[in-house]
């Protein structure tokens, strides 16, 4: 094989990395490069998206694989052993230089490095750790680093990864164990969860130590995340929400990413040909949001799904679906209701709710006031009582869903160019 230059390798190894949805650079500690020898800074809060691709995804990090050669044969993966893709491998120094060159030009927040498994899990993990070590120690790089850990790598290596990285992650890949067995026969749900449990311990321990003495060594201050593929196995939305809730609970995950399975070049015959609608992925993120920011229990979110099929409606969001199913909880009085009740109103976000709570300490709110606090008063109106408003007509109708849809559901618009 002819030698590939860095740019050709980048073409192959970025292409191979794009099925990982995460590109987040958020939630780490505050760092800057003043007084150092290198460059880079991070924020405690939100990350920065330096560009957006036409797939609507944020480009925050240089997201690449060290190599796309792999000894595993996971059917959903473009890099599986039996795939016909071109193979390439970066040297650790090439990744370091590329990261720094991009960072200096303000293209990226940092690096998200993953890899196919070559030789052994430990060998691969060592290479990944070496990139992070060189960036941190040789170049005093203080930007964001996200490392994917390898399922069966030695815990000591994973620990070293966490010492350099802001975030570590390992993908559960599929929502069901049966799905994982079918599509990733060499992977094992138990071992993956074991690795997540190990990382959780390291994260918690390091957090405790940091609280006691400031100079304690850090371990992945931006926590750990995971990803599952939607639509490649038989899991329903209800299954997926339940699994995600279990993962959040067990492993203190910062994020669970959902990636609608999409066709890949040279696909395996085991894989479904038809991809799920991208809207399904969107609805799952909304469900996730309800659990993390709106105090819905996993059971409540699952109740928004259709009883028979276990699937979330695609035409309306899960919060609205829940409200239409439990309409006895509405209307809610904006001048009296507690925070929890206001958070349930479709169309009221957390910020709008906080503003309502602050404003109503000083005066009674009318519908026009709510209109100024939300994007669409037409959407929230059927669920609210304000000083000059009561939604009498709607609450009594039998088929509230049918009546309300045209009122509250967003107008049909083209979400995907090529549905």
């Amino acid at each position, binding site marked *: 094989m002819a030698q590939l230059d860095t740019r050709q390798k980048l073409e192959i190894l970025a292409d191979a990395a794009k099925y990982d949805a995460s590109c987040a650079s958020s939630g780490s500690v505050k760092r800057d490069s003043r007084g150092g020898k290198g460059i880079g800074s991070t924020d405690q809060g939100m990350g920065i998206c330096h560009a957006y691709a*036409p797939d*609507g995804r944020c480009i925050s990090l240089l997201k690449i694989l060290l190599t796309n050669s792999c000894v595993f044969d996971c059917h959903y993966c473009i890099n599986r052993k039996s795939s016909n893709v071109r193979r390439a491998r970066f040297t650790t120094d090439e990744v370091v230089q590329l990261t720094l060159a991009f960072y200096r*030009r303000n293209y990226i927040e940092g690096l998200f490095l993953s890899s196919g498994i070559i030789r052994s899990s430990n060998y691969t993990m060592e290479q990944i750790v070496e990139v992070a070590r060189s960036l941190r120690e040789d170049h005093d790089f203080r930007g964001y680093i996200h490392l994917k850990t390898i399922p069966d790598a030695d815990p000591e290596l994973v620990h070293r990864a966490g010492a350099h990285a802001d975030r570590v992650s390992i993908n559960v890949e599929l929502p069901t164990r049966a799905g994982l*067995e*079918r599509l990733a026969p060499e992977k094992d749900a138990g071992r993956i969860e074991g690795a997540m449990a190990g990382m959780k311990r390291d994260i918690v321990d390091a957090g405790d130590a940091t609280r006691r003495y400031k100079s304690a060594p850090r371990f992945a201050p931006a926590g750990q995340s995971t990803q599952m593929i939607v639509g490649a196995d038989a899991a329903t939305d209800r299954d997926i929400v339940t699994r995600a809730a279990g993962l959040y609970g067990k492993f203190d995950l910062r994020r669970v990413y959902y990636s609608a399975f999409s066709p890949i070049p040279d696909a395996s015959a085991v894989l479904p040909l038809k991809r799920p609608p991208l809207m399904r992925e969107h609805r799952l993120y909304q469900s996730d949001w309800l659990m993390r920011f709106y105090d819905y229990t996993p059971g409540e979110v699952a109740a928004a799904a259709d009883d*028979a099929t*276990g699937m979330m409606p695609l035409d309306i969001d899960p919060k609205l679906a829940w409200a239409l199913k439990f309409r006895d909880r509405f209307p809610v009085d904006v001048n009296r209701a507690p925070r929890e009740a206001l958070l349930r109103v479709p169309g009221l976000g957390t910020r709008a709710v906080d503003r309502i709570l602050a404003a109503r300490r000083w005066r009674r709110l009318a519908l026009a006031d709510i209109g100024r606090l939300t994007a669409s008063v037409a959407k929230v109106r059927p669920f609210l009582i304000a000083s000059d408003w009561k939604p009498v007509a709607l609450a009594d109708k039998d088929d509230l869903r049918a009546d309300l849809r045209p009122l509250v559901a967003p107008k049909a618009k083209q979400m995907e*160019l090529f549905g």
Partner: protein
Amino acid sequence: MRIVTLEAEDDFDGWRDAVRGLVLDQVPPDQMVWQVGEDDPGELFAGEMPVVPVDRGAFSVPRGFIDLARSAILHADRQRFALLHTLLDRVLREPGLMEDQADPLVRKIEGMAKAVRRDIHKMRAFVRFREARDDGGTRYIAWFEPEHHIVRANAGFFVDRFATMRWSILTPELSIHWDGKRLTQGPGASKADAPEGDPVEVVWKTYYASIFNPARVKIGAMLKEMPRKYWKNMPETALVPELIAGAQAREQVMVATARAKTGDNVEAAWAALRDEAMHCRRCDLYKHATQTVFGEGPIDADLVFVGEQPGDQEDLAGKPFVGPAGQVFDRALAEAGIDRARVYVSNAVKHFKFELRGKRRIHSKPDAGEITACRWWIEQELALLKPRVTVALGATAARSLFGKTVTISRERGRPHDLPEIGEAWITVHPSFLLRLPDEEARHAEFAKFVHDLKAVANRLDR
């Protein structure tokens, strides 16, 4: 009328000093003219004396107001100084106003502050440095056009991040320079003052094109966060039109190659699919049924029959079409000249649904939800087998394949073209023949059933 001249567009301290004096003097906000620098002579009111800020006492304002004013003052709107003065005037008279985000003026100024924060964030995101050489060595230079007066407020971010680099950010209003130790300010610049290119940009564009997934185009989502107004100074955006144009073609090629692939691991794929189906809980029917009854037959079959659901005997045996209806089906196939060993048989619903009457399990029709839930499996089976013809036996199977209620009497006896599935036929379910009470009708319907099967067989002989 009184005039205040501020030093610069983002002169918050100047505004604060001036407005403090105005409040103490009880000057009404509508009696004020605010201007910046020498550019705006305010000719209408020429001759008025500017207010000289003096320290004649103090009053306190809520913290929230200061924070809001610090951001909003950077807004491009020329009314901002006056609007903030009006708001301050009201804040001092109306306690709690700052917490009333439903107040139109608070809302308006919050909106301005939000626009400023967004502009600050987008500048951090979309500034693109190009490498250049000057007397001091390497210098990274960017040209950027912010919407609001944010450049100085944002300088700290770039110093924190690129402390050991020498860099300059040029904008139409002013430019800022960092030499590794000191931040200095210069006059406004033009795009021509910045370097024309950078050899690394082509590598960056390669990355941008490669990280894009053509199977999921969401242009609206991209434009919402990366509006076109920023594009002209971002090298990678030049690729967007061609990436979008090529996306559909690339995805179609991927799907077509996947479809064209035959043989190799279809057998393994089918076995894996069946194993996964054994654990299916997509609907509640698994709770009472004995087991999943998956499809059966040669993987390379040209003809696939889809029935309704396993019956009592199928549920126990774990095989489709082994009960009484299966026997009628076998007889009809033989009469139509179709080799039973060469067809693949499956069901629209894979678990037995029944009601208990005493000790007997009586077949119960699956509902629309159960059919939809189970459709996933039949779609996967058909995608793997890619038969030339698929036959729906009865209303449930037709509903599953066609995705809607179908009248069998109207649609039977002719081919239908289904997206994803291809050629599909509809006929009755053999159990329908068993239920007919009248012997004569049973004979007639059986003949019609065989007639349909022969028509299907003819399609395969072509």
